[in-house]
């Protein structure tokens, strides 16, 4: 028999605390679709996606309804397209992106990730063709997402790729200038990209992954905040030990939801279950914000002194609670701090508590990086590359994933507002210190060598 507390608390999490499964992502290898004929390649890609994913949305909705937990997004992550379509040029790569878009539309998923490349040590011909195709591909498709891994702790930073990505981001912004540079929201530059991440825009199906696999991304900043509110209501000055325990327990509950639904969807589709990504993924609505947690814990806003310590505690406690709740964890697993997608973080920028420099400091202890950051449209490619280089260095040295999803919105200047819509939210354009020219630094090129893995300090 269930207890009163079990029933009431579950209902509260669902009704008032925005508990949901943020994404169920079907990871699908397309390596067996390889062909030197473009039409054959795209036909095989579409056929394989439809064969494997035609029931994904239906099954996710049925399982979500069975448990009363909404599955907000259903997505596809496919093999890195630069490896699969390496014999094609940039124009042909755009055609591949269009095929992915069509296939995604046919099976009804929100996004298809994997139009990307892994170039941490250098470019193959296919890598270069794909990266050059990104601006047009993201402008001409709705669902396709692109990720480029330019650094890793094992291989160092490919500074030529960093330089190139600054230009690609600028070109993507220009190609989608009529929709607030939305193309850039579908483009992420990574260090240490995880091969099994269910979240967009970075999800892709790693080469060591099975042919097809179900990965789940949970959410739950609202649930964590309410749990901390209850602790504070009982004792206005709890110790950090108690705060950490509360976050751990809550992360456990949230992760169990993802695990239960993910396994059932995988079983219904007769696919292996991969991982639960334990991330706290916010949405741009009140009560579902990572930023609001900082206020609960006594700070004026995220960005004020003390924020890095809180984020470190939050990120670690989520991993500890979640790891116990799931058989396999993976992906990014931690706290996201996407500026436009989180009401509390976005407001902290507007109120002047959070600037780009503090945001970068926070990325050293969060699970992603500079995420959904809108910057002035006239920010130079070299400055964007320099931002990427800094972020990649944090990831490389700290053996963690870092990423840059930055949006230079054409025609907008610092302090202007930009609305992306839906889960992508809105943001104030942040100030970028680009009066100090970065072109000479970025122009150096080459690679920053892999770091030494001993003598840690």
């Amino acid at each position: 028999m269930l207890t009163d507390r079990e029933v009431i608390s579950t209902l509260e999490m669902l009704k008032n605390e925005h508990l949901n499964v943020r994404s169920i992502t079907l990871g699908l290898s397309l390596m067996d679709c390889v062909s030197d004929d473009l039409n054959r390649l795209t036909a095989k890609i579409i056929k394989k996606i439809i064969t494997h994913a035609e029931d994904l949305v239906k099954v996710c909705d049925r399982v979500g309804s069975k448990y009363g937990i909404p599955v907000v997004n259903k997505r596809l992550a496919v093999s890195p397209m630069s490896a699969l379509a390496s014999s094609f040029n940039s124009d042909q790569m755009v055609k591949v992106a269009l095929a992915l878009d069509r296939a995604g539309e046919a099976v009804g998923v929100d996004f298809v990730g994997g139009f990307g490349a892994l170039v941490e040590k250098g470019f193959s011909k296919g890598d270069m063709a794909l990266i050059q195709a990104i601006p047009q591909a993201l402008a001409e498709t709705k669902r396709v997402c692109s990720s480029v891994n330019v650094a890793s702790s094992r291989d160092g930073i490919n500074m030529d790729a960093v330089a190139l990505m600054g230009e690609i981001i600028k070109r993507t912004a220009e190609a989608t200038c009529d929709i607030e540079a939305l193309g850039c929201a579908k483009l992420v530059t990574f260090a240490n990209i995880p091969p099994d991440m269910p979240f967009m825009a970075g999800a892709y199906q790693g080469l060591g992954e099975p042919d097809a696999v179900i990965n789940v991304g949970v959410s739950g900043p609202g649930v964590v905040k309410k749990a901390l509110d209850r602790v504070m209501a009982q004792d206005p000055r709890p110790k950090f030990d108690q705060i950490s325990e509360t976050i751990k327990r809550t992360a456990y509950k949230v992760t169990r939801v993802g695990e239960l639904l993910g396994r059932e969807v995988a079983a219904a589709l007769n696919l292996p279950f991969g991982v639960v990504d334990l991330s706290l993924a916010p949405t741009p609505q009140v009560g579902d914000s990572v930023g609001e947690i900082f206020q609960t814990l006594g700070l004026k806003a995220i960005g004020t002194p003390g924020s890095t310590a809180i984020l470190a505690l939050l990120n670690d406690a989520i991993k500890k609670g979640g790891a116990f709740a799931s058989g396999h964890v993976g992906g990014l697993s931690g706290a996201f701090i996407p500026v436009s997608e989180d009401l509390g973080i976005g407001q902290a920028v507007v109120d002047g508590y959070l600037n780009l420099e503090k945001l970068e400091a926070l990325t050293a202890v969060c699970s992603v990086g500079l995420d959904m950051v809108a910057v002035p449209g006239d920010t130079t490619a070299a400055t964007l590359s320099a931002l990427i280089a800094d972020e990649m260095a944090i990831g490389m040295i700290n053996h963690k994933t870092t990423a840059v999803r930055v949006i230079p919105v054409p025609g907008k200047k610092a302090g202007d507002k930009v609305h992306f819509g839906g889960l992508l939210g809105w943001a104030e354009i942040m100030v970028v210190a680009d009066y100090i020219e970065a072109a000479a630094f970025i122009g150096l090129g080459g690679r920053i060598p892999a770091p030494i893995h001993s003598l840690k300090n």
Partner: protein
Amino acid sequence: MRNVLVTILGRDRPGIIHQVSRVLADFKLNVIEVSQTTLLGEFAGLFSCTLSSEINLIDLTQLLDQKLESSGLTQLVREVGAVPEDQVEVTTESYVVTVRGQGRPELIPEISGVLSSFEVNIDTLRAISLPTVPYHPGQRIVMFFELSVPRETNQAALREALKLAAKGLGMEMSLQHRNIFEAIHRL
């Protein structure tokens, strides 16, 4: 061996279990399962027992009456037969219906009526009163029904019928598989 169910009702106080179990032990009844609860200060207990074939249930009932009547307890003894061999075993899944809102007399008959029309068994039914809040006059309650739903039940139709019934009552309803409650709260 025979199975009997002994039901005891009365004002809750220390000593009821001792008093009842003493009589049952004197009659060599072996208690194998007990379920008890209190509501509004009243005790209700169900004792599932086995007993040997020579014991006369009328004697047991009379003695229980004698021993318990002065304490204001009432009792009912019933022999429970074995499950008929031809009874078809129905495969079911466990679901929970939760109804929230202002309590009203039609609530239980309306919801249970829908469940009964779908051949759904109610395993347990509980109601919890919530603290009253401003702008929500009247007693707010959460009522939850733990159900055994036959596997072949049309889930969508059941959900729709429950939703309609709850709407008619001006209440919120959810139908969820029981595993979600256990997954979140139990190790």
